[in-house]
């Protein structure tokens, strides 16, 4: 078997890469395929926290790459999602502990036993980025509707292209429909106009993400979370299903909920 390796990247830090990687991985696994989540942010490990697996780590990515243990031994199975596994980053090492060739070999070997390999890329454009993308078949670029995040995303898209990772998907994270509506935030079309890439999904700014992370339960597992729903939709699109995006762009106020209840879409 040969799965698909997808790197989740952004350039800028703090736009929600790790949260996106965790939720996409969990969302994909919940709908059937087997998924390996790889934390490529060596020295700044966090994917384990978002997944609630921080107490189960014995071996890490650097141990595997250095041959200290077998990859199957280092993988941690998720508590509730059987077909979801995590390969944690090393915390006491740095990006130079791994080379792009080693990451490529690791990604290839994971693709033999998983349908999807989701790589959580560190922020920045240095070696950690080059490591993370070296074995990727596709890339997801996460941005927020802020100028600095869009600028960095543009740079990352250019770098992905020159590293032969073509046709990245875009996720617009933390959109605030109320601010978009009063023209105080760039909308999704504005971002697409600048970045000229295919839109994979739009995730609303949602408190439930913070609560989910506090509990170590990905938002996709919370039926009522709006962000969780957005990530479930994203997972479905990655699997080739045609899911409309528009619903996430409506303000989530009482009027919106009432209109939804009545089955009316507001313009």
């Amino acid at each position, binding site marked *: 078997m040969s799965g698909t390796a997808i790197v989740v990247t952004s350039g800028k830090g703090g736009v929600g890469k790790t949260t996106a990687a965790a939720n996409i991985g969990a969302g994909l696994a919940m709908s059937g395929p087997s998924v390996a989540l790889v934390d490529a942010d060596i020295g700044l490990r966090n994917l384990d926290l978002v997944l609630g697996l921080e107490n189960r780590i014995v071996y890490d990515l650097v141990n595997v790459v250095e041959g200290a243990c077998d990859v199957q031994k280092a993988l941690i199975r998720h508590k509730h999602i059987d077909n979801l596994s995590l390969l944690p980053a090393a915390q006491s090492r740095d990006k130079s502990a791994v080379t792009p060739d080693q990451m490529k070999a690791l990604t290839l070997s994971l693709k033999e036993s998983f349908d999807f390999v989701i790589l959580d890329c560190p922020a920045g454009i240095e070696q950690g980025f080059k490591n993370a993308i070296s074995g990727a078949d596709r890339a997801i670029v996460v941005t927020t509707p802020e100028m600095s995040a869009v600028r960095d995303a543009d740079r990352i898209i250019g770098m992905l292209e020159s590293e032969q990772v073509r046709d990245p998907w875009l996720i617009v994270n933390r959109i605030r429909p109320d601010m978009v509506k009063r023209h*105080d935030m760039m909308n999704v079309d*504005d971002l697409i106009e600048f970045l000229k890439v295919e839109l994979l999904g739009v995730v609303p700014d949602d408190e439930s993400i913070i609560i989910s992370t506090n509990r170590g339960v990905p938002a996709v597992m919370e039926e009522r979370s709006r962000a969780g729903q957005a990530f479930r939709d994203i997972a479905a699109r990655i699997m080739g299903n045609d899911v409309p995006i528009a619903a996430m762009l409506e303000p989530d106020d009482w009027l919106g909920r009432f209109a939804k209840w009545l089955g009316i879409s507001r313009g």
Partner: protein
Amino acid sequence: MMEFLARLFGRVETETSRECAKNRLRLVLVQDRATLSPQVMEQLKSELIEVISRYLDIDEGDMRVELDTSDSSVALVASIPVKEVKRESAGAF
């Protein structure tokens, strides 16, 4: 008074923060994207030399080629010292 009335009826057109962000971002991205990798720049230079040398005898050592992004637009600026115009070029018409 007019201003007050205009504002009351929403006639004063102020730039929204979204438009402001878009305009600023547009300029920044033009500049960010106006970079060529050193390899591509070298290739561009050597091809320029190849073409120009057919007509002019140029001083390759003092040649400068760069992208200028000082304004809101991008320009390829080349300074190529000419040693001599080749005789066959000068005579041709």
